[in-house]
């Protein structure tokens, strides 16, 4: 049981799924010999052969659409979009087909596919390589939207996503791809796809986040603890369907909530979290629900990227504001 990065854990989960189920096939741009530009599929072509690991032509709409067709035939299609910034041409297939094939045929056909892609900023990448489009997918009924925040979670969630009988959009916070290593047992155990994970207990304020923002929240929580403020941290690893119960229960307890997302503020998934809380936990709220998010502007190129990304200081400041209410 070696220590794994998130890349290693994802690779391990893909290999495990392919070993367990011959119907699992992978395709995407450069997933074969190259092993994916981030090496998530490294070695899989050699292990599973060119019938199950396929390089596609450069066409994202087709990547998603081919996955729909293959999945309708019962293949578990795991399709990679090289960067989320290039996933937009695939949205049509996800909204108009993947998400509704089961519903429109009354269950006759279904779509057990995973559309996986790295997303998010913080690695000084070129233009169009740093965005966070999760909210667009989370608005599509019939999809599942999953975002791991750690190697272990990546392993368990990826297995769950592949085994799930419905289409899953799996967003991988690339900034965390190699940020940490942890023990990831290759035990074939999947994580649930409909539950938030409480990562840290605390009674004063609830921090809600997903993906790369979890690490920021943990650092912020440490800083807050130093001031005597106990933050509870929740990883919304499955944005859709959204496990509001876990978040609401925490906020009922703490009375304060800061939702942290890397994506641009307006219309982001943090707004969904906040709206749900405003509907269900109003009486418990002791402070306004704050959203710490990317600003409502285009993600800057690397030289100014750091100004855009929500970080520890902004999270702590928001918690401080929340704590300032009696």
């Amino acid at each position, binding site marked *: 049981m070696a220590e794994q990065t998130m890349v290693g854990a994802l690779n391990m989960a893909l290999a495990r799924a392919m070993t367990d189920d011959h119907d699992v096939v992978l395709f995407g741009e450069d997933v074969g010999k190259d092993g994916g530009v981030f090496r998530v599929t490294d070695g899989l072509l050699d292990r599973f052969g060119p019938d199950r690991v396929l390089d596609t032509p450069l066409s994202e709409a087709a990547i998603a659409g081919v996955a729909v067709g293959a999945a309708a*035939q019962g293949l578990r299609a795991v399709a990679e979009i090289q960067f989320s910034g290039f996933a937009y*041409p695939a949205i049509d*297939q996800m909204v108009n087909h993947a998400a509704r094939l089961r519903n429109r045929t*009354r269950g006759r056909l279904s779509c057990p596919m995973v559309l996986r892609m790295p997303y998010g900023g913080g690695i000084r990448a070129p233009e169009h390589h740093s965005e966070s489009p999760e909210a667009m997918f989370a608005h599509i009924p019939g999809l599942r939207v999953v975002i791991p925040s750690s190697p272990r979670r990546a392993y368990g969630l990826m297995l769950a996503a592949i085994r799930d009988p419905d289409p899953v959009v799996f967003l991988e916070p690339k900034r965390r791809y190699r940020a940490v290593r942890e023990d990831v047992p290759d035990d074939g155990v999947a994580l649930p796809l409909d539950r938030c994970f409480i990562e840290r207990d605390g009674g004063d304020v609830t921090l809600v986040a997903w993906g790369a923002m979890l690490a920021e929240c943990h650092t912020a929580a440490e800083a807050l603890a130093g001031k005597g403020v106990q933050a509870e941290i929740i990883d919304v690893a499955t944005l859709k369907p959204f496990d509001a119960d876990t978040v609401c229960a925490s906020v009922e307890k703490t009375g304060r909530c800061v939702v942290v997302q890397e994506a641009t503020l307006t219309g982001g998934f943090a707004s969904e979290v906040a709206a749900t809380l405003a509907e269900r936990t109003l009486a418990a709220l002791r402070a306004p629900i704050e959203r710490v998010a990317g600003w409502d502007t285009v993600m800057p190129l690397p030289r100014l990227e750091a100004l855009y990304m929500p970080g520890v200081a902004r999270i702590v400041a928001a918690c401080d504001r929340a704590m300032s209410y009696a």
Partner: protein
Amino acid sequence: MKEVATFSISHTGIIDADGKATGELPAFARDAAELIRLYRTMVLTRSFDARAIALQRTGRLGTYGSSLGQEAAAVGVGAAMRPDDVLLPSFRETGAQLLRGVSLRELFLYWGGDERGSDFQAAREDFPICVPVGSQAPHAAGVALAFKLRQQPRVAVCVFGDGATSKGDVAEAANIAGAWNLPVVFVVVNNGWAISVPRDAQSAAGTLAQKAIAAGMPGVQVDGNDVVAVRVVVGEAIERARRGEGPGWIEALTYRLADHTTADDASRYRDPAEVTAAWKADPIARLRTWLVASGAWGRQQEQDLLQACTAEVDAAAAAYLETPPQAPETVFDYLYATLPAALAEQRARFLAEAPRHG
């Protein structure tokens, strides 16, 4: 300057607009019973079409897209397929769907706005009618990928219109089908119009068969009003694909004799004279002429057939109209394989509120 590649596009027609054979008849067409089966399906398609329009006009069906004049293209495709192939239609493939086993009642249900119309009781693996133009083309490649990886001798057959050939999805799907040598056949039913946009305004390409050249696959033209030719040409492409020799692309030349849909008024944008002229190439009349001339068909058979088709359509329409709407919970119950916990409460709220008012 040297020449590095050359291409040519062929056109095949067998029975012409006057009902005369202009080429050699394929074996199946020498079997009168088989030709009559195709003829029958074309006539049934047209009966269904007329009834669907009538039901729409009287408020008992939703917006409907007629396949009037395109019966040969659809029936030829359906006839060329084997049962375990998979059809990925657009919305004017009634004739093909009928041969695949889709029922008239299912088609009425679909156009009547009921999801059960896509839950085909036969043709379980066929795709439902596809409304976003051309978006089913990548699915066809995906279905074909599954066939190929599983080494099944099956073929995916994808049908769309002249307008669809302008869509990026179609180009991407064709390219990937070529690159991966997939067992898929794309059939362009060129009916001259994409709503109000005439074929010539859709693309500067002189034929729509030549779109195949971009994907490195063979492209051919066929007289889409000649069911015999369609069946031959599509059949050849299908069997070629089945043998592992790669995808195919056929442009079937036909004409949309009706409005685009019941919501359209084609007189706003096209000359009625064009429609009148197009009737001369009516696929049903020409096959009838051929059958009559060959002695396989007569007045009585025609009368019987029309009556039988009307009766079949009557029965299906009645069954459709008698089908009660689905229960409200069906709005939620087919979304995921298992209703996620997070949706259970919403579903309950929906059931409490929905029946009252919507």
